[in-house]
Structures are given as C-alpha cells and as structure tokens.
C-alpha cells in the first residue's frame, strides 16, 4: 500500500497553507486596513465627545461609515446601530423585540438551521415564558413557506430566519418570508451575516425589518457589527440589552469602536462596488472545484440547494470517507468539516442532519468557503489534493469496499457505540 501523504505538486504562485474557510472569517482587505490606520494611530477620539475636535473627527468617521453600510443594504443611516458583532446583533434583535413587544404576544418563529446565536437566544427566551416554533427545512435546506404561514398565530411577534446559511450557503426565500410577515403584522428579523456583500440584499425590496450584520465576513475587522432597525413601515422598537451612556440612540450603550466601524464602512463600500464581478468570479471557482471532484470521484454529493446558494459556498459529502481523516490529509488547506470528530460536542453538524442526511453522510462532509483572495491555481491544487486523499482513504475504507461489492450497508446490523 502506498502512503497516504502524497506529492501533489504545488502550482507556481500558490502559497501554503491555503485559506478556503471564508464563511468562518475572511482576511482583512488591505484597502480596509488602510482606511482604519489613521483611527488606530493619531485619530483616537471618542465619538461621543461633543466638545472638542478629537471627538468631532471620530464622530464624522463613524457617520461616514454608517452611511456606507446603510447604502449597501438600502437603509438610511439612522437605521444602523453599531454592535460588537453578529452574535450581539442577534441577541439584541431577538431579546430586544421580545421584551418590547411582550404585551402584544410571546410567540417567536425561527428555523432549525439557524446559527447558534439565534437558536440559543431563542432557547433562553423559552425559559422566560416565550413560545418558540422551530420550523423544519426541506432536503434542500430551505423552509416551506406554507409551514411558516401555518405557524403564525395571534401571539406571534417575531419571525427570525437567516438570509444565507453559514454551513451550506443556501439562501432562504427572505423576500417572501418578509411579505408574509408584513401581511400578518409580524416583525421579520434576518441574520444577514453571510449574505451581505455577497449577493444583492436590500431591506426594502426584501421586506426585512431588522437585520444582523458583521464586518469580518466581508474582509473587514473582527469585533464590529451592526443591527439594521427599520424606522418606517413599520417602525420597529427594540429594548436595549446593554445599559449605560445611551449611545446609538439608547439601543446599545458603550463607546464606539471607531477604527472597527471605519473598517466596516470601507468593507461595505468595496463590497458594493465589486459584488457583481466578485460573485461571478467566485461562482466560476466554485463550479470548477465541483466539476473537478465530480470528474474524478464517485459517491459524492452537494449538500443543500445548488440553485439558491451563495456563490462562494461548496459543501460536499465524500461518502465512505470520514471528514476528520480527510482534513488530516489536506492539512495545508483550511476548510471545515461537518464531522462529529471536528466538533467540541462530538455530534455531527445539526445543519446537515436537518437536511435529512444520515449521520454517516454528515460525517463525510467538507465545507469549502471561497473568497475574494482565492485563485484558480489554489482551486486546482485543493481539488487535486482532495481527490488524491479521498482515493487513498477509500482504499482504507471497509465501507467503500463493501459498497463496491454490492453490499447494502443499511442492511448490516452495526454495533452502534
């Protein structure tokens, strides 16, 4: 038996390790850093200081960034509240709305493949007398709008459904969801972290009332995010979850992270200018990666809808190969796996399980998250490397051998342990 480590040639211009996990976080764009630098060095003022130039210049920079962010999503500046990131934005939106509208009702609707920042927030509210409906998803990862309509009752105050999924990249039908919510007089919050800057997202056209955003998924800095809160048709009110100096119109106290905010603004401006060409570029890379896998390997499949999907996402199961062992073989490539062995809980991905995939298929999944700085040469290298390792690991896999012999694995009495 030949060894598993192989000599796939590294193409010229490719530097190892390769980062292909852009749904987790993305590298800082040098143009963003350049915009931030003055506020990390000389311009250190507190944007809330009203009586000297240090404060004024900081406030000016914050307001310019607020306008850049608002423009990208079709909002107005006054509708943008800065936070520390998407987890805080999700918490503020859901808890803030639940508290503010408690007298109107106590029912919240979400769905099973949300980020934990949404799911765990909803779980906490359940302990405080709120009722939460977790809608299932279809095999393609999308919710059924009929399920949503049926779930809404006279106590429903909030629907929170993500725009794009962080694992499988599928795009939920937010425009239709928002329309249903507006017809029923229910507030619609969306975790828009993965969609913003990747494909068009417009709070007016998409009928969104509240949206969570973050900078570090769009080549901005970590530790800064925002919450869009609609001011008209309908005007949404949110109870503050952090008390203090009354910053951000009382909705989120705390001294503003000026350099971070400037970076987020710049990242949004770049995204606005480059989104269309970048989306086409990423789609090209992603399709190339998929095509290479499919031309060389059997028993692989894409998880989640191919049609309704972020351009940079490829989530694939390489059946009969366990995800962690695959990652071990491609340790010069940064990607993620839905395998239990790679998670702290030793449970395979709840997102993949929600699609109805067996645990065995979930264990075999790899998420490739392509981004702005990935190149075709990198894609070619990653494809060659993965194909090589999958083939070797399948030589080692009793399951692959059995399937090739025509044995039905579902008919075997396994000793679950």
């Amino acid at each position: 038996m030949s060894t598993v480590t192989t000599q796939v040639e590294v193409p010229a211009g490719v530097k190892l390790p390769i980062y292909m996990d852009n749904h987790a976080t993305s590298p800082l764009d040098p143009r963003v850093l350049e915009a931030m630098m003055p506020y990390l060095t000389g311009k250190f003022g507190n944007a809330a200081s009203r009586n000297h130039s240090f404060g004024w210049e900081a406030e000016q920079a914050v307001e310019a960034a607020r306008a850049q962010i608002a423009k990208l999503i079709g909002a107005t500046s006054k509708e943008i509240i800065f936070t520390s990131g998407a987890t805080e934005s999700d918490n503020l939106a859901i808890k803030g709305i639940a508290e503010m509208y408690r007298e109107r009702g106590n029912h919240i609707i979400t769905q099973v493949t949300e980020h934990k920042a949404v799911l765990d927030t909803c779980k906490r509210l359940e302990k405080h007398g709120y009722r939460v409906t977790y809608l299932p998803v279809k095999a393609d990862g999308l919710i059924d709008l009929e399920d949503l309509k049926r779930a809404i009752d006279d106590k429903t105050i909030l629907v929170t459904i993500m725009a794009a999924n962080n694992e499988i990249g599928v795009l939920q039908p937010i425009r239709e969801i928002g329309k249903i919510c507006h017809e029923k007089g229910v507030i619609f919050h969306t975790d828009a972290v993965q969609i913003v800057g990747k494909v068009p997202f417009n709070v007016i056209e998409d009928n969104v009332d509240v949206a969570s955003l973050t900078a570090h998924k769009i080549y901005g800095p970590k530790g800064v995010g925002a919450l869009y809160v609609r001011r008209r048709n309908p005007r949404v009110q949110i109870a503050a979850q952090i008390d203090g100096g009354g910053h951000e119109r009382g909705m989120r106290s705390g001294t503003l992270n000026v350099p971070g905010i400037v970076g987020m603004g710049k990242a949004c401006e770049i995204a606005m200018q480059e989104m269309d060409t970048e989306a086409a570029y990423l789609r090209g890379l992603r399709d190339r990666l998929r095509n290479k896998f499919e031309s060389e390997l059997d028993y692989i499949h894409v998880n989640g809808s191919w049609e309704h999907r972020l351009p940079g996402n490829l989530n694939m199961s390489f059946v009969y190969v366990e995800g962690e062992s695959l990652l071990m073989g491609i340790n010069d490539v940064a990607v993620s796996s839905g395998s239990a062995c790679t998670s702290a809980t030793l449970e395979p991905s709840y997102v993949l399980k929600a699609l109805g995939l067996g645990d065995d298929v979930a264990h075999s999944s790899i998420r490739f998250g392509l981004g702005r700085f990935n190149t075709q040469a990198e894609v070619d290298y990653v494809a060659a490397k993965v194909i090589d390792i999958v083939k070797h690991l399948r030589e080692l896999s009793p399951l692959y051998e059995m399937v090739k012999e025509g044995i039905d694995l579902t008919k075997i009495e396994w000793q679950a342990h």
Partner: protein
Amino acid sequence: MAYSDKVVDHYNNPRNVGTLDKSLQEVGTGLVGAPECGDVMRLQIKVNPETQVIEEAKFKTFGCGSAIASSSLATEWIQGRTVEDALAIKNTDIVKELSLPPVKIHCSVLAEDAIRAAIGDWKKKNGVAETAPAATAEAK
C-alpha cells in the same frame, strides 16, 4: 486537533491495509463500529491451525486519524502472537502507545473490540471454545 507523531505516522503509512478471503477456514473477520458513529473497523486474521499463531493481520478502517492509527497498530501488534496472547492486548495499551487524548479513547476501544471480534469469528469457525468474553462492542 493536534495528533501525536505516532498517529500521524500510522495515518501516513498505515500498516497491513487489505482484505483476506473471509471464506477461508483459517481466516477470522471482525467488523465493529457503525457508519453513523463515524467509525467502522474491519480487522482480519489468518491463524496457523497447528500453532494458533496469527500469521497475517489485515485491516480497513473508516474513521478519523486516531481510529486508523489504532487499527493499524493493532494489526502490527497481533501479527506473530498466538490468539490467546492477542486477546491480552488492552485498549489502554493502544492509548499509551499512540498518546491518544481523552476524546479519542473510543478509537482504542474499537480497536480492542475488533481484535476480539476477529478472534471470536475464527474460534467459532474452527470450533475452538471461547475463553474470552463475547466479541461484541460494549456500551461506552
């Protein structure tokens, strides 16, 4: 996850990968684990009927690097031993040799189970009385 050098070595150069003809009288086959748990090991032995020495051991494993290393190491250790000697191998020996972290101990348990299952199958085929507990995966 950081792997020990020995795990990496077994992953990169797995010993005794392959398949023995399970219809042969002198071959015992153990298949343990489950695909939904993320690891399945198949360990096979070819036993000399005169001496009861394991002359050949082969494995195939679906699982993480530690599972592959545990089963690879198991084949290495049992080759040349008598079946009774092979049964003396404990999962804790494998943990120690490969420096497995606590979350990977189940990989070593599975390897021990695989040895027992293969020997159990061989004994059943050859009418040798069981001297060890039944070769089933224990709850853990």
